[in-house]
């Protein structure tokens, strides 16, 4: 090794550049300073481009157009419906039913909220990863990443700063949508807390999906690859998990048919709700389900309840408004036959021809002979019904035909009789699942009310966790020398495996 003797030491020339102290910035300063410096630079570049303003304009036009479309459609539909309803009432001579124009405004509010939430979710799913998929790889393509990495910025600060700058841009879009979203207040049904919940979900969604783009940007050499991969991953998460969840639920049942013609469907396993934790649409369904005019939107609420396996309680609606059996109000609960417990599961009987019949709610149906049959959910089929027995875990589903030959007429002996008839053979074959055998602690107490806030909060949490994990992983990928020191690195440098190679090669050349 050559000594340093040949070094010429010049007198340290004073420069105008060294009027600084050799202060070593702390880790926090490096972190915060990194975020500010990087985010400021990115935003400065971005806000100078005209595209930024174009995107905001297009985004808002899209939302406003969509909102107007929903409004126009619902208004037209409501007009047609009232006309039809009015004619029906006149023809039948019955004045029972929904009055013309009932809850139109609230319905528009609800549908507007649902529509805007859905559209914004889709837009964020598309935009957030697209914005972030370039943040690291474009630095790499531009060959500026090395310059950044060799500064004392903390890598976490660097990556978070870049993510923040890209997301701020999505947040600007979200914020810009507030005036459009505020339209729902004009129509009602949706409260400010609903809108706040919605925005909370959207913001966490943007963070989680943005982190997916960031992570792929850190993995991939090219922005194009990262963008395509990010779209695919987001698509799989957002669209793939719902069919996967449904398929799991379908595969987790076992169907047998007894000699009496009763089809028994046993549920052997439940599709895990976790499958949908990263699915924003499940969260949106949870959010919008209770903003319907009746305080309950059957489609979304049923779905959320089936996913979370949590009870829902239709409230007054279950026993008054919508309990009708084809123009004939039903005596509810069924006198003498079925007693519905006051907590727990709601039972529905629906006949496709006439709409929804809700029997009531309770974890069990108490039959008049003293037997208790816990009920989970009863879904309808044409001219018949199905009962799912067993509130939680493996249960039995009974499907049978209910003779409703004459539309509008109550079956002989009441529905309870039909029910009992159907359940009898089953109860003989198989001991019913006792409600006390399955104490569902977390469902018992709060089980009144809607299943709201059970899914979207988990969604939001899942997005946050996903975002944090992927951001941390990305920092590991940005600079290979700046790995989080999970393990203590071996102190002294390793002896090279090929020790002979380290012989100064210059010696070879020397004569």
């Amino acid at each position, binding site marked *: 090794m050559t000594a340093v003797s040949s070094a010429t030491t010049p007198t340290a020339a004073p420069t105008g550049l060294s009027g600084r102290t050799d202060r070593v910035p702390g880790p926090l300063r490096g972190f915060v300073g990194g975020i500010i410096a990087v985010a400021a630079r990115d935003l400065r570049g971005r806000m100078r481009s005209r595209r930024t303003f174009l995107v905001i304009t297009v985004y808002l036009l899209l939302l406003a157009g969509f909102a107007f479309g929903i409004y126009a459609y619902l208004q037209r539909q409501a007009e047609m419906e009232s006309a039809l309803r009015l004619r029906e009432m006149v023809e039948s001579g019955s004045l029972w039913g929904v009055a013309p124009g009932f809850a139109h405004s609230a319905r528009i509010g609800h549908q507007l909220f649902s529509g805007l939430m859905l559209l914004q979710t889709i837009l964020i799913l598309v935009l957030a990863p697209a914005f972030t998929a370039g943040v690291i790889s474009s630095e790499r393509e531009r060959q500026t990443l090395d310059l950044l990495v060799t500064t004392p910025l903390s890598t976490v600060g660097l990556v978070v700063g870049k993510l923040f700058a890209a997301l701020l841009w999505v947040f600007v879009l979200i914020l810009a949508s507030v005036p459009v979203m505020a339209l729902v207040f004009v129509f009602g049904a949706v409260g400010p807390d609903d809108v706040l919940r919605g925005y909370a979900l959207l913001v966490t969604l943007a963070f989680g999906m943005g982190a997916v783009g960031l992570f792929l940007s850190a993995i991939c050499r090219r922005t194009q690859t990262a963008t395509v991969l990010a779209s695919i991953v987001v698509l799989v998460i957002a669209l793939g998990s719902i069919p996967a969840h449904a398929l799991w639920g379908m595969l987790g049942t076992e169907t047998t048919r007894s000699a009496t013609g009763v089809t028994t469907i046993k549920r052997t396993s439940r599709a895990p709700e976790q499958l949908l934790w990263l699915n924003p649409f499940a969260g949106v369904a949870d959010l919008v389900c209770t903003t319907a005019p009746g305080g309950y939107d059957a489609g979304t609420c049923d779905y959320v309840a089936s996913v979370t396996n949590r009870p829902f309680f239709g409230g007054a609606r279950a026993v008054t408004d919508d309990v009708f059996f084809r123009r004939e109000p039903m005596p509810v609960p069924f006198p003498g036959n079925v007693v519905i417990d006051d907590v727990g599961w709601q039972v529905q009987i629906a006949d496709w021809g006439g709409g929804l019949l809700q029997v009531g709610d309770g974890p069990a149906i108490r039959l008049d002979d003293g037997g208790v049959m816990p009920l989970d959910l009863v879904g309808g089929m044409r001219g018949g019904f199905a009962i799912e027995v067993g509130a939680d875990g493996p249960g039995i589903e009974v499907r049978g035909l209910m003779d409703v030959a004459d539309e509008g007429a109550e079956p002989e002996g009441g529905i309870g009789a039909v029910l009992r008839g159907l359940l009898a053979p089953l109860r003989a074959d198989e001991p019913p699942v006792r409600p006390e055998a399955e104490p569902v602690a977390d469902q018992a107490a709060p089980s009144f009310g809607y299943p709201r806030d059970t899914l979207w909060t988990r969604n939001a949490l899942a997005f946050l966790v996903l975002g944090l994990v992927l951001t941390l992983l990305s920092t590991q990928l940005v600079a290979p020398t700046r790995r989080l020191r999970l393990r203590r690195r071996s102190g002294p440098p390793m002896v090279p495996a090929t020790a002979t190679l380290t012989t100064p090669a210059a010696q070879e*050349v020397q004569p």
Partner: protein
Amino acid sequence: MTEVLHIQGLTRRYGSTLAVAGIDLSVGPGEIVGLVGPNGAGKTTTMRMLATLLVPSAGDAWVAGHSIRRAPDRVRRVIGYMPDSFGVYDGMRAWEYLDFFARCHSIPGRVRARLVHDLLDLVDLGHKRDAEVQSLSRGMQQRLCLAQTLVHDPPLLVLDEPASGLDPRARVELRELIRELRAMGKTVLISSHILPELEELCTRVAIIDHGRVLAEGTVADIERRLRRGAVFRVSVAGDTAAVEAAALALGRDPAVRTSETLPDGRIEIGVPEPDTDLPGILARLVAAGHPVSAFAPAVSDLEELFLQVTARRDEADGGDADMTHGTAA
């Protein structure tokens, strides 16, 4: 440790390829050391390891006493690194570019404005302060990037092929700038694949090929140690016959090893040692009545030297190590 940079057994492997095969080098304060080698010799890999962009497979290096393996964060504060190819951000002005990197180094706002101004003046871009970075010429961008490496006033600058792709004028300007940096007390490690480019600039050079240091020292040192022969070209006035006669005479000269007539009518001679009795050869040739019109080295000394060093290495790799054979390819 008094060295600004101390490299010990630095090795980097890419899969089975050994990009840097154990480099040892020490650089004292105020030195300008050139890393010279053909493309793919391992210069960039070495510099990237020093800049803490790559983790060495083995070995270590210390910059101002900080190990690049164990204290990369500290190394980043004492090193200014200019990559061989670097990009610039779109939509950013020259001053913003420097301001951004100053921010990255946590330089407080009141110092930053003056610092950016001074740096722009230093690299002679004061008049381009508000110009968009991507609109600057390549030479200007190169200087701007150099200014960026100086933002945190590091004692060591690592410049990877700073002159590549520059026109001769920009090269001269860059060289002046590096001299100025040396006057400011900076230590510079600079790489190039062209040895003459570094000749006037560097206090020392290290010739690198296949990931090893083949020769190291001042240019004159290396020359003295390595030169085993030289090639000269002789022009003779007159027709082909005169040239043939002169070539024959040269071939018979005891100090000349080889003599060959080139298609353009010049004669190329090889001499075994650089300090061969050249005046003697010339005198004997003239004395013999050959009308010599020119007598000069065939290629520039340094280029030849470089080729010699790297060619020798190639031969050694080929298993046919003839260390005394020194003809330029």
